[in-house]
């Protein structure tokens, strides 16, 4: 079963490392709230396999002035797509 992992705290939390221990091929990762700070330099996502889609909530990027600074691997999504993603994957695992 595939999972969408949501990460909602900044890189200082170390959440990405815990999350990656559970991530399987085909899972997706969505950055929300302060989690969107993972999306700009320095590159913190080098360990994430190309099998895993990466998303970030556009509203949270905009609010923090990060929309133009994010890595090309990351797809910004709005609230509507956020909801669709939670349905597209079999389950959601939230990291906060």
């Amino acid at each position, binding site marked *: *079963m595939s999972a969408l992992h949501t990460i909602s705290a900044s890189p200082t939390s170390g959440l990405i490392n*815990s999350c990656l*221990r*559970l*991530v*399987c091929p085909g899972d997706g990762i969505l950055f929300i709230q302060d989690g969107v700070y993972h999306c700009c330099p320095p590159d913190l996502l080098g360990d994430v396999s190309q099998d895993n889609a990466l998303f970030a909530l556009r509203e949270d990027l905009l609010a923090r002035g990060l929309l133009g600074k994010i890595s090309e691997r990351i797809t910004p999504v709005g609230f509507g797509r956020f909801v669709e993603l939670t349905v597209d994957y079999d*389950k959601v*695992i*939230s990291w906060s």
Partner: protein
Amino acid sequence: MQRKSLTFITRQAPYGSNKAKLVIDAALAAAVFEQQVNFLFMDDGVFQLVQNQNAESISSKTIGRVLETLELYGIEQALVDSVSLEERDLSAEDLAIPVKILNVEQVRQLAARSDVVINL
């Protein structure tokens, strides 16, 4: 009611917040409804398992007492992430209750095959 497999991941140390207690309460509630419950200690959550705790000194309830109730509710096996133990220089002998230690692949598979993962 369809039986689902639920995995509860407890990742916080025991007394700094109420999250550790919350995960236990949620898992016990699920067990009462006869769901298949897995209970996994990860990250700082493994500090909940350290022996010889006595939280009376900080006017709290010692978490070990609460953890002992897991078995009473039919959650027979407490699971622990091996990496989290190693990172904190802990081993099975340091722990207050019997646990099953899972390696990285086993933890990943546990989450993958669960219908629902509650992670606090």
